C-alpha cells in the first residue's frame, strides 16, 4: 500500500462513514439527471426546468410559504407511517385518519366558541389528534384482539372515512347558503398563524419530530417499540405485552396523522372540504420510506417532496412540462435510496447493507 493509496482511503473513509447521508444525496442527484433526460426528450432544457421549480419553491416569498405549507403535513404523515413501521405495523390508513381529524378540528374550530385564541387552537388540535388516534385505534384493536391484518383493516377504514365525511359535509355540517360540500370557515380564534413565511404548524411539526425521535431512541417505551418491530419472538420472550404495543402503536400513528390533518385545517385551509387533503396519506408512506423509518430523516424527505410539489406549477408555466414528472423523480430517488445499487457502485465492498425497513409484514 503506497502513501497515495492511504490518502485515498482516508478521503473515501469520510464518505463511507457517512454513507447514510451521502447515498441519499447521490440518489437525488442521479434522479435529477434521469429526470432531466425525460425533460430533454420533451424538448426542454432541464436546467431551465429545475431552475423554474427551485426559484418558485425557495426564492419567492409566496412560494416559500407554500413549500413550508406543503412540507408540514408531509412531515407528520411521514412520522405517522414511520412510527407504525418501527413497531412492525404498516399503516396504510394514514389518509383516513388524517381526513377524519381534519374534519374534527374544523368542527372544533367552528362550533366551540368563546375561547381565547391559544386555547381554541389547542382544543381544536387535540380534537384532531384524538379522532385520528381513534380511527387508527380501531385497526389496532382489531389486530390485537381479533387478528385482523392491519393492511386490510386500514384500507377498509380509509374508504369508510371518505364515505362518512362526504355525508357529513353534504348535510349536517354543510356551510349554509351555498351549494358546495364543505364546512363553514373556522373562527378567527382557531387559526394557526404564520410567522413570516413559516407556518406555525411547521414549527410544531419539527418539535413533534424531535419528540418522536427522542422517544424512539432514548426511552424504554421506544426501546420496546423497536424490539417488537425487529423481532416479535424476542419481544414476547422478553415479556413485552404485544397487544398493548400494537394498540399503542396504532394510536400513536393515528394521532400523528391526525395532527397533520388538524394543522392543515387550522393553518392552511381554514375549513374542511373533501378534495383538500387528497393524497397526503400515500405521500406519508413515500416520505417514511425515503426516510427509512428514521423520524429525523422525515424532515429532509418532506422538504424534498414539498419543494417539488410547490414548484410544479411554475415548472408547467415556464416550460410546459407536466407536473407528473415530479412523481417520476421521487420514485427514482426512492429506488436509489433503498436499492443497494448506488451504494455498491460508489463504495463497492464497504457499502452498508440497507436493512429492511418494513419488517412487520410477516405478522
Amino acid at each position, binding site marked *: 500500500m503506497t502513501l497515495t493509496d492511504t490518502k485515498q482511503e482516508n478521503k473515501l473513509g469520510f464518505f463511507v462513514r457517512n454513507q447514510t447521508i451521502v447515498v441519499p444525496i447521490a440518489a437525488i442527484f442521479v434522479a435529477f439527471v434521469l429526470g432531466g433526460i425525460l425533460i430533454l426528450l420533451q424538448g426542454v432544457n432541464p*436546467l431551465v426546468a429545475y431552475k423554474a421549480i427551485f426559484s418558485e419553491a425557495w426564492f419567492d416569498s409566496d412560494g416559500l410559504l407554500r413549500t413550508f405549507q406543503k412540507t408540514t403535513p408531509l412531515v407528520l404523515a411521514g412520522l405517522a407511517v414511520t412510527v407504525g413501521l418501527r413497531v412492525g405495523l404498516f399503516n396504510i390508513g394514514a389518509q383516513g385518519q388524517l381526513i377524519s381529524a381534519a374534519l374534527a378540528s374544523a368542527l372544533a374550530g367552528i362550533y366551540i366558541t368563546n375561547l381565547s385564541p391559544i386555547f381554541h387552537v389547542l382544543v381544536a388540535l387535540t380534537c384532531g389528534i384524538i379522532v385520528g388516534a381513534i380511527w387508527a385505534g380501531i385497526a389496532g384493536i382489531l389486530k390485537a384482539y381479533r387478528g385482523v391484518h392491519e393492511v386490510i383493516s386500514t384500507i377498509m377504514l380509509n374508504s369508510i372515512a371518505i364515505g362518512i365525511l362526504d355525508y357529513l359535509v353534504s348535510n349536517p355540517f354543510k356551510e349554509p347558503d351555498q351549494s358546495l360540500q364543505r364546512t363553514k370557515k373556522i373562527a378567527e380564534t382557531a387559526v394557526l398563524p404564520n410567522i413570516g413565511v413559516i407556518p406555525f404548524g411547521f414549527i410544531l411539526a419539527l418539535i413533534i419530530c424531535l419528540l418522536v425521535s427522542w422517544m424512539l431512541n432514548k426511552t424504554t417505551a421506544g426501546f420496546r417499540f423497536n424490539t417488537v418491530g425487529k423481532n416479535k419472538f424476542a419481544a414476547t420472550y422478553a415479556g413485552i405485552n404485544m397487544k398493548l404495543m400494537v394498540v399503542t402503536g396504532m394510536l400513536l400513528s393515528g394521532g400523528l396523522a391526525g395532527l397533520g390533518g388538524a394543522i392543515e385545517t387550522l393553518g392552511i385551509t381554514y375549513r374542511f*372540504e373533501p378534495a383538500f387533503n387528497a393524497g397526503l396519506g400515500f405521500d406519508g408512506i413515500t416520505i417514511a420510506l425515503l426516510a427509512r423509518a428514521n423520524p429525523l430523516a422525515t424532515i429532509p424527505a418532506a422538504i424534498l417532496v414539498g419543494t417539488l410539489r410547490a414548484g410544479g406549477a411554475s415548472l408547467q*408555466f415556464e416550460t410546459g412540462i407536466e407536473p407528473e414528472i415530479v412523481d417520476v423523480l421521487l420514485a427514482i430517488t426512492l429506488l436509489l435510496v433503498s436499492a443497494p445499487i448506488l451504494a455498491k457502485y460508489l463504495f463497492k465492498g464497504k457499502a452498508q447493507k440497507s436493512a429492511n425497513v418494513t419488517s412487520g409484514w410477516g405478522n
Partner: protein
Amino acid sequence: MKRMRTLAGISILALVLAACSSGSTDTAAEDTAAALDDSNCAAAESFCVGLVTDIGKVDDKSFNQSAWEGAKAAAAEVGGFAKYIETTDTKDYAANMKQFTDKSYDVIVTVGFLMAEASVAAAKENPNTKFIGVDQFQGEEVANLTGLIFPEDQAGYAAGYLAGLLTKTNKLGSVLGLEIPPVQLFAKGFEAGATAANAGVKVTTVYHPPADNGFGDPVWGAAEAKKQLSQGADIIFGAGGGTGNGALIEIAKAEGAGTSIFCIGVDTDQWGTVPEAQPCLVTSAMKGLSEGTADLVKAVFDGSIKGGNFVGTTGLADYHDLASAVSADIQAKVAEIVAGLKDGSIKTGVTL
C-alpha cells in the same frame, strides 16, 4: 472516490450537453402562433389569456378541455396568446393564478366551482386583471370578475324530455359522477324533463360512491350502465366525466344501440370527444362552455365585459347520424321545449 468523481463527471457532462443542445423553450402549454409569447403582456397591444384548470388535465374530454378550447380559440381570433396551468392540488389555486398575474396577463379564466373563493380573492387583489370564473356563481358582484354559470338543470330537462318521449320500455337510467351540485342539477333536471314528457316513466339515478376518482372511473360507469341496460332501461344519461364516458362506451356496445337503445352525453357534444359512443349517442346535454368562455374572453378584449354573473347557454347537441331514429314529431316537441326553457316560459322546477 474515483467512482464518485466518475459519477459526478458523467452527470455534469450530461447536463451541460443538455443545456447546450436544447435551446428551445418549446412549451406544450402554449399552442399558439410561433411569434407570440407572454414576455410582454403588460403592453397594450399584447393580449394574454391565462387558464387555470381544476384538478385534472386539459385533455380530460370534459369541462377543463372545453374551457381551454374556448379560451384558445378566442385568443387566436383576436391575435392574442393563451396558456394554461393544470392544478394538481386544490390548495394551489391561488398560487397558480398568481403565476399569471405576476406576468400581467390581461384575463385569467379559472375553471370549476371549487375555485370560486380563490378567484374572488385574486380578483380583489388584482383589480387591473379580468377574471372569468367558469361554473362560479357570484353571490356578490366583484367588478373585474365575471361568473360564467349555466343552468344545468335546463340541459338535463331537455335531455330528459327527449328520453321520455323516445323510450319504448318506459325505463330510463342515469350513471353519474360524485353527488355534487352541478351533477345533481343535471340528474334532477333529467328526471323532471322525463316525467314531464311521459308521466309513467321510471328514472333510475345512481351516483358514484364517494372516492377520489368519482369522475374518473370508466370501469364502474361501464358496469353500472350494463346493469341498468339489462334491467330494462333503454336510454341512459351518462353525466360524470370519465365515469360517464365509460357508461357511454358500454352502451354503444349493446345490441340495438342506435335503434332501440340510446345514450346521452353531457357537458359538450360528446359525438366528437368520445367517438366510441357514436353508435348509441343520440344527443348530449350541453353547457356552452367553449362558446361562453370564448365570448367572455372576446368581451374582455373589446372592453365590454362586466362583473357579476353571465348566464351561458345550454342546449341539446345535434342528433348527428341518429337523427333518423328520432321521429320528426319528437324532434319538433323537443325543440319547442328547448326554446321554452331559453325564453323562460318553461321552468324545470328543480331545486337543490
